[in-house]
């Protein structure tokens, strides 16, 4: 695997980027993966078990094993680590949804039975390519996070559901898992070969890679479980939620790759260290803060696309101008997908939007998503963008719910008509009506795919309405009627 420096320049980025992060010990996720602005990506390689341990690896797990499982969960809860897969649901809170375990008079916990951890590595939303970096170069960081999550939630088996197209990454993970087994991280002897723990050191975890086979929908958590069970990836109706009844009907926790990769440093350095990074919600009230760093993958019309680890709250402009070397050809910013196409677009006047979990409420998009913006320059045809996005959703709709199955196809047809200049003004309203009735949280379908389609289409059509109007013919068509004698 070679890193391809797409338009990479060797200028040093200004020191203005992430001064707070530098003071807190630098990036947590990419400390072993050279990334701008901390190091040159050309020096990337797969971090082996030995190198990982030499550079302080598995210390977080060691510390976790010296704590009670509930104390680990409590620490993660205190850090307000929000899920990095798109929805931003607090990870620690999700863990507490597992059935409570009774404690007998001697203080021994009841046997939890079989529970599962499913790691979502089905990264397939256009624009999103952040988890790939971790799996490409630092797989043990993910494995350590998995071990910590399993210990905290008393889970004995973890599956990494990785998308089918990630052939290389699946291979890297499998090799890393082999190394981890050989060194006693996983396996029958117990975590870290049965290192002394509050529970007698007998807590053993198994970890496996499960390869998907090319279906975007399997990134939806219940569709992922169906895929793990060998069935077609059709999302399940909730409730019951997976924490109660998930994989094979057993309690299951589903976490994103990047979420679990945060766990080792949170446990090692404490929740307080984590909450010093990022921003608190500016919306006030009970809104959750956006703490910690986030992998942000910038693609599209920028000089230096790639994945950067930044504190949440970094303005999009800083991300693009400072880290990505600005927009290609010195052109102007026209818009950006907020983070995976289902989140909708940020308009030309929203270049300064801070990349945190408040972005959805403040800037008229669905949310932060995966914080992987695709940037467009001023020569981009936004109608083509809409056509591309609707084609994606038409292609990836699983076909289970009628509004999504039919609506996504209709939207694509309308967008094609508009692009070819054959649509009429009324088609614009028709498209918006179809999009809205497909789903707008809470939607009309089982999963959120239709909502993503709706938000993408609606935000583009609202923020670039004039471009769409310029391409359509008027609805009123003058017809020449002969009323008299010739």
């Amino acid at each position, binding site marked *: 695997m*070679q890193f*391809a420096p*797409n338009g990479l320049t060797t200028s040093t980025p200004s020191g203005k980027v992430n001064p707070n992060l530098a003071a807190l010990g630098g990036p947590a996720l990419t400390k072993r993966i050279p990334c701008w602005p901390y190091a040159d990506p050309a020096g990337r390689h797969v971090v082996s078990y030995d190198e990982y341990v030499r550079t302080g690896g598995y210390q977080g797990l060691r510390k976790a094993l010296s704590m009670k499982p509930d104390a680990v969960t409590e620490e993660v809860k205190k850090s307000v680590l929000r899920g990095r897969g798109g929805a931003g649901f607090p990870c620690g809170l999700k863990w507490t949804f597992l059935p409570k375990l009774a404690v007998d008079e001697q203080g021994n916990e009841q046997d939890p039975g*079989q529970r599962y951890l499913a790691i979502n590595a089905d*990264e*397939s*939303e*256009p*624009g*999103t*390519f952040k988890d*790939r970096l971790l799996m490409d170069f630092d797989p043990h960081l993910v494995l350590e996070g998995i071990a910590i999550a399993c210990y905290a939630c008393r889970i004995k*088996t973890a*599956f990494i559901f990785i*998308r*089918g*197209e990630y*052939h*290389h990454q699946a291979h890297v993970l499998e090799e890393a898992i082999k190394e981890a087994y050989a060194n006693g991280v996983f396996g029958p002897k117990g975590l870290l070969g049965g290192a002394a723990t509050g529970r007698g050191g007998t807590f053993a975890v*198994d970890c*496996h890679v*499960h*390869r*998907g*086979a*090319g*279906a*975007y929908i399997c990134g939806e958590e219940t569709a992922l479980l169906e*895929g*793990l*069970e*060998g*069935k*077609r*990836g059709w999302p399940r109706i909730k409730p019951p939620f997976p924490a109660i009844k998930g994989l*094979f009907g*057993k309690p299951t926790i589903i976490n994103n790759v990047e979420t679990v990769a945060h766990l080792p440093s949170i446990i090692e350095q404490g929740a307080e260290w984590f909450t010093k990074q990022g921003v608190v919600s500016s919306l006030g009230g009970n809104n959750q803060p956006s703490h910690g760093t986030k992998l942000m*993958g910038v*693609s*599209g*019309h920028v000089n230096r*696309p*790639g*994945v950067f680890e930044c504190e949440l709250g970094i303005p999009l402009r800083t991300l693009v101008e400072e880290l990505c070397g600005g927009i290609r050809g010195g052109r102007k910013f026209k818009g950006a*997908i907020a983070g995976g*196409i289902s989140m909708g677009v940020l308009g030309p006047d929203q270049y300064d939007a801070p990349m945190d979990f408040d972005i959805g409420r403040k800037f008229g998009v669905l949310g932060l998503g995966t914080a*992987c913006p*695709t940037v*467009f320059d001023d020569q*981009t045809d936004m109608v*083509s*963008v809409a056509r*591309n*996005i609707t084609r*994606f959703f038409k*292609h*990836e709709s*699983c*076909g289970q719910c009628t509004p999504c*199955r039919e609506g996504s196809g209709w939207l694509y047809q309308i967008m094609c008509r508009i692009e070819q200049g054959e649509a009429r003004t009324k088609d614009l309203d028709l498209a918006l009506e179809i999009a809205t009735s497909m789903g707008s949280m809470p939607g009309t379908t089982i999963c959120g795919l239709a909502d993503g389609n709706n938000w993408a289409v609606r935000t583009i059509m609202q923020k670039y309405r004039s471009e769409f109007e310029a391409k359509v013919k008027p609805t009123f068509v003058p017809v020449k009627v002969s009323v008299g004698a010739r």
Partner: protein
Amino acid sequence: MAWITKPSATTKVEKRPEPYLTASMKDELTRTYLPRYETKHAALLPALHMIQHEYGWVPQQAMLEVAEFLSLPPSEVIDTASFYEEYWLKPKGKHLISVCRSIACEFCGHEAITQAVKDRLGIDVGETTDDGMFTLIELECLGSCGTAPVALMNEELLECLTPQAVVKAIDEIYAGGGKKHSHGH
């Protein structure tokens, strides 16, 4: 497009004497995969991956064999196999070129890549060359938007592609340097 029904009444299953699901595959499934899961059904994706990897497609006979081995109704196997895009239910060329057409790739020039492949091989998207060497498809996001445009040559990702680079990759395979590419070995 799993909801589109197929004319199953007229389907004829082509059979060959030797099985597709070989003894060594069964052995690997039994030793490695079946112990991981609570149900036999869950080993279906790994089993189909093996078939796809080995033969480049998933023949009906192989699905029947997998169904028997995992004690599943054949309909369940076909249900799953037809849902996922990576399983080819019809034969394809020896090498598969999958050009990404999603948002970042389209706006960073995927069309020129597809066109270069079309011109080099004389086929359209979805077609296979007459010599059975190459099949060209376009698919949705390959998850490498930062190095757009990208394409998969079998199981190897080609990043920051140019029309010249993709033609060169094809020429290398034709020149015999492509042994490592066949079915992704």
